[in-house]
């Protein structure tokens, strides 16, 4: 077996993957090109496993399995992002994604903290004397016992 054959195949596949990532506009096609690159790395790992002597046997194949798992995780999260992008913009062209501006449907932060405190505060104070010992708030309990 000439190890140069799978190595050159893997190098060409990686180059094609890089080309695809840079060339394609559709995000799904970009993900496909990323898969090509990951597979090129896998081929390198498996070939190195059969051709090179390592301290631990079959380390290359184990790493190839790990890369496959990583690719599965990557494709899951990547497709979730792509579908969310499609839902927001009705397009998956990667060069139309505005990276600098805020998304249109994300509103400016509103201050709601004081409102929550003021609605919670009077109710707790009012419940304290009225509820007596049945009420869990500790501020109301000594007043009810007296």
């Amino acid at each position: 077996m000439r190890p140069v054959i799978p190595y050159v195949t893997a190098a060409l596949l990686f180059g094609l993957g890089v080309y695809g990532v840079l060339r394609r506009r559709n995000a799904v096609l970009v993900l496909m090109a990323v898969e090509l690159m990951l597979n090129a790395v896998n081929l390198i790992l498996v070939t190195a496993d059969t051709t090179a002597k390592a301290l631990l046997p079959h380390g290359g194949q184990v790493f190839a399995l790990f890369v496959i798992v990583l690719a599965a995780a990557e494709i899951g999260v990547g497709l979730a992002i792509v579908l969310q992008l499609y839902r927001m913009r009705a397009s998956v062209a990667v060069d139309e994604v505005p990276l600098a501006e805020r998304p249109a449907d994300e509103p400016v932060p509103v201050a709601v903290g004081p409102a929550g405190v003021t609605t919670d505060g009077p109710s707790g104070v009012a419940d304290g004397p009225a509820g007596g010992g049945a009420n869990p708030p500790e501020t109301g309990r000594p007043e009810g016992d007296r």
Partner: protein
Amino acid sequence: MTGVDVLLVALGAVAVGSAVLVVATKHLVRAGLYLVVCLGALAGMYLVLSAELVAWVQVLIYVGAVVVLLLFAVMLTRAPIGASDDLDRPGWPAALIGGGVGLGLAALLVDAYRWTKVELPEAGTAERIGEQVFGSWVLPFEVLSVLLLSALVGAIVLSRPDIGRSPGRQSAVDGVDSDGAGRGRSR
């Protein structure tokens, strides 16, 4: 050239040819199907290289799951069935960089290995790989399972529109930043 070399050359030619079609075709669905051909040829190369388990995992996970997910994404984004002209950017920088990377790596590896010959080891069974995975590599294996779980949770949080969005209802519970709200809810 022995029979193994001929097989490797043939499968490599199929893989590279279909990879060219993946990055060059104008049909979205055909790109996914050419990807199936490319990954299948790679699985054949793994078999020839005596990596049996990796080959079958490749068929199961890549050809079975990843490509199906990609085709689902093609359908869910309402891709046109026929050829579409807006898939590509102007390609000279991409061709330059991609060709440079591919040919550079190929030249490097050719220079490193020349035309040397290596004896193939006997076909590796799943038993030996399993011993390695659960022996020497058991800690990375467990870390990888945690990573898969977090990727799963992340994908769910990303694809549910009612988590982390619509701060009118949720800002009292959590921060208004969608990322922070998503992480807070998923915990």
